[in-house]
């Protein structure tokens, strides 16, 4: 799998020259946050919605992606007249800290060396946490002149950021929508992430993490990591429905070519992923999700993370999601109950697995739109 480096493209961004001290204790001297906005901030700056992207998502929520040319990853949800209505809300989405679409991450030049043209961080990039990502987003939000977000919304790892936002900055979040997520990574979540990371390490082009200095990309390893992860995003029913045991043409049995359609699909997912994602970023971000444990950050009691909160929550899970199953959302809902928080909680019936939050799920979209409309009424936002 010959693979060129990710092309350098310009992303709209803001740079903070005072940097950011990370939870691990290390400090980034300079912090860059790449972001996109949609819609218009109203005069009293009360209609801002922060969308938090998932592990391999990015800030291109509702527009053509500059690298892949594909439509935005949430184009069915964010836009004029859609559940997150850009005629009404000012939508912000930032590439996460540690990402590879313009925010500070392993592809950024090191800032701990006093030399011109310093090398990249690569695998020396400090470990970041979900909280670090949220603190970087907070800087962006302040830079945009917003003191209170009308809503913070995200699925999967984006949902973890939503929870962290609500826990860290309760007064800055009027409504929070954590979707298909969990308050901590389970052993199974960590296990799948670890297999993906080991696939990257096993690639001869990994070169001990210095691939980028040699113009190489551990494309096979990263593709395998993506293939494994992609299986966890689907469900058995969805795979059966889409592919069953169908063969690709009349290939001879016994061949290890992509004989079955499902193999061909996964290979395609793997190879297209490496054209838009950096291996070191993948490691950094998967690690951040593994470390996430909101209860542990609050003395082992998840409800303590939300004590006294006035944020209105809407938890949404999907019935066939086995990566972040409904039980995880219920755990969060109950913790919110213990904190006497205002919480809505819906499980959407679907066979599409974890990925359902990215797909055409009318009940999900109705739920999200209705929740936001109700919150807007309570917040006194003009219709």
């Amino acid at each position, binding site marked *: 799998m010959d693979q060129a480096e990710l092309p350098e493209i310009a992303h709209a961004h803001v740079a903070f020259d005072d940097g950011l001290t990370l939870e691990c204790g290390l400090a980034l001297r300079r912090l860059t946050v790449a972001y996109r906005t949609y819609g218009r901030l109203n005069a009293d700056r009360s209609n801002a919605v922060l969308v938090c992207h998932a592990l391999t998502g990015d800030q291109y929520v509702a527009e053509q992606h500059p690298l892949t040319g594909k439509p935005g990853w949430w184009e069915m949800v964010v836009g004029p007249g859609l559940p997150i209505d850009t005629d009404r809300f000012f939508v912000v989405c930032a590439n996460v800290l540690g990402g590879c679409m313009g925010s500070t991450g392993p592809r950024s030049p090191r800032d701990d060396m006093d030399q011109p043209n310093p090398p990249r961080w690569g695998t020396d990039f400090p470990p970041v946490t979900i909280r670090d990502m949220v603190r970087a987003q907070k800087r962006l939000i302040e830079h945009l002149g917003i003191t209170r977000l009308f809503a913070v919304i995200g699925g999967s790892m984006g949902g973890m950021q939503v929870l962290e936002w609500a826990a860290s900055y309760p007064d800055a979040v009027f409504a929070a929508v954590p979707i298909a997520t969990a308050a901590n990574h389970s052993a199974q979540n960590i296990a799948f992430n670890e297999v993906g990371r080991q696939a990257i390490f096993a690639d001869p082009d990994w070169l001990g993490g210095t691939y980028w200095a040699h113009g190489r990309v551990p494309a096979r390893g990263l593709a395998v990591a993506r293939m494994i992860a992609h299986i966890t995003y689907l469900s058995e029913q969805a795979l059966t429905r889409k592919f069953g045991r169908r063969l690709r043409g009349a290939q001879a049995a016994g061949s290890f070519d992509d004989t079955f359609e499902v193999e061909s699909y996964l290979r395609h997912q793997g190879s297209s992923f490496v054209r838009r994602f950096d291996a070191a970023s993948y490691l950094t971000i998967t690690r951040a999700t593994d470390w996430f444990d909101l209860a542990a950050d609050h003395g082992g009691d998840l409800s303590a993370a939300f004590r006294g909160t006035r944020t209105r929550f809407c938890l949404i899970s999907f019935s066939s999601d086995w990566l972040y199953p409904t039980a995880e959302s219920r755990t969060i809902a109950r913790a919110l109950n213990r904190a006497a928080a*205002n919480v809505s909680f*819906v499980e959407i019936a679907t066979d599409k697995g974890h990925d359902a939050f990215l797909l055409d799920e009318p009940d999900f979209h109705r739920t999200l739109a209705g929740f936001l409309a109700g919150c807007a009424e309570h917040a006194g936002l003009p219709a």
Partner: protein
Amino acid sequence: MNVAVDPVRYVAKNMRLDLRLIAEMIAPGSRVLDIGCGDGTLIDHLFRTRGCDARGIEIDMAEVTRAVAHGLPVMQGDADTDLAQYPDAAFDYVVLSRTLQAVERPREVLRQMLRIGERAVVSFPNFGHWRVRWQLLRQGRMPMTSVWNRPWHETPNIHPCTIRDFFALCEQEGYRVERWLAVDDAGQRAPWRRFVGLANLFGEQALFQLRKAPS
């Protein structure tokens, strides 16, 4: 897409009647939890007409989805298991409308309601109604009326009780009945409402407002 599952719970709901009578009991601006809130009609009404901070729990996911999609704060949950999660005195009123007879442990649900709320508002269909008694007496079979309208082997109403039974339970548990009323099948409060014996015979639905007796 959702496969609409017929909700396995008491279905002959006349929300408008319930809504009116229960809402009359609730002070404006109070914090309310409606258990078994269905599509959230009552909490919507309490928010819009009484400025209440009203929330709901509902076991049937299709109803929950409908409620949240209408912008109402409703969570999927089960009265038997989820009330224990709430802190003491989190609400001014906890409402259980026509659901008591369908929960696993009615006594425990009532205890939880009066732990998490200052007052409990409970409505239930009265199994002591004369028509129920008459059918059982005359036919010797489980009654089937407009209120008790499912055969015994399919009904979710596993804990039917009469108005007298409920008074007895309140006494046993030390709950003060602050208000109560019974309504007939037309939803009208009738003159017999002041007399427990008559209400237990002619009342099709009962509505109670309870509070823990001062200890």
